């Protein structure tokens, strides 16, 4: 481990300080190290009091999202060598309240996620004896992209609309609602419509498009929102010309 890099890490210890400060750590690294490895090196060898979330180390759990040099990144997928010679600025995810150091409060996201009912809703369940709900590869393909979301919230940290108006439902939640709306087994799109077509729902989005650019799973939340705008408009237009409905 010949090479070293300086990490400029945000520290916030609410019992000691009123606002966040920056602490520098010089850490060694090899080519196969990601920033999460460097942070864990700090935690294990330099300063055990540094707090941050992580779990799987392989881009699945979505826990280790942080701002790296101002960009939302999964630190398990960002190689240290890409930031050499440094220094690298590591901050907690933007727009979320900071609990401690690099750990943010996710409550707002979790509440919003629950509110759009991201599960398959059936008006009437068919009896088990009739077997499973079948789905063709084409039907799967309609929503598969949106189902790849790992709830890492990088898209929220990239979304200035969410930063300026925290009541905005936000990219990942709308993409996940759309994931179920487009599922051939789901019958709950009406239940999601009212919330999603609200001003704080899809219409809050001004299509900055950064959510899609930072998504580590190529979910395209910006696309999901625009597609839902088209659906909501079409629905509104249909209800306008056919008020009694055509079920």
């Amino acid at each position: 481990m010949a090479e070293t890099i300086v990490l400029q890490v945000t520290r916030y210890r609410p019992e000691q300080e009123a606002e966040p400060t920056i602490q520098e750590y010089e850490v060694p690294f090899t080519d196969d190290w990601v920033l999460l490895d460097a942070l864990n090196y700090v935690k294990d060898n330099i300063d055990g009091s540094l707090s941050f979330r992580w779990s799987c180390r392989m881009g699945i759990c979505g826990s280790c999202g942080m701002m790296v040099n101002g960009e939302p990144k999964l630190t398990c997928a960002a190689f240290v060598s890409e930031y050499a010679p440094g220094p690298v600025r590591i901050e907690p995810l933007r727009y979320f309240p900071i609990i401690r150091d690099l750990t943010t409060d996710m409550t707002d996201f979790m509440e919003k996620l629950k509110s759009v009912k991201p599960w398959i809703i059936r008006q009437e369940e068919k009896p088990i004896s009739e077997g499973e709900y079948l789905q063709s590869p084409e039907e799967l393909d309609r929503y598969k992209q949106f189902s790849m979301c790992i709830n890492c919230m990088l898209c929220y940290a990239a979304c200035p609309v969410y930063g300026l108006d925290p009541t905005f439902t936000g990219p990942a939640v709308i993409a996940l609602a759309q994931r179920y709306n487009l599922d051939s087994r789901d019958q709950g799109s009406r239940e999601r419509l009212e919330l999603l077509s609200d001003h704080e729902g899809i219409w809050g989005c001004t299509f900055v498009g950064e959510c899609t650019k930072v998504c580590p799973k190529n979910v395209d939340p910006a696309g999901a929102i625009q597609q839902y705008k088209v659906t909501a408009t079409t629905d509104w237009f249909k209800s306008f010309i056919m008020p009694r409905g055509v079920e």
Partner: protein
Amino acid sequence: MKGSPAYREFHPKWYRTRVSTYWWLSQWSYRKFMLRELSSVFVAYVIVITLMQAHALGQGRAEYAAFQELMTRPFVVLLNVVTFLFLLLHTITWFNLTPRAIVLRLGGRRVPDLFIIAPNYVAWLVISGVVAWFVLRG
């Protein structure tokens, strides 16, 4: 999502960062977004100018000559050049974003982006051609 966001309410120790008014200056993609949003002002300007032109035309020769004179003033020419550039930005950026909003499927597969974007440009060229023909036919 009415009312205040669902953070655990007013936790006194949790630090909230205030978003700067100048957030959009921080990176190029945000600045490009702001330019795209600003281009709407120039679209509105073109509509106003077109209405003014139609109004002047209805008022008679003298009024229309005055309108034409107004259009030749250096400041207005400069403004119109800037407007043209913003209209190009507006049109091209929105045309290129159409496949994100419109998903067409043929035979179970998603129609490639190019086939969604191209008709916009074709329509733009045809309509521009028709307008140019009307203006330039003498």
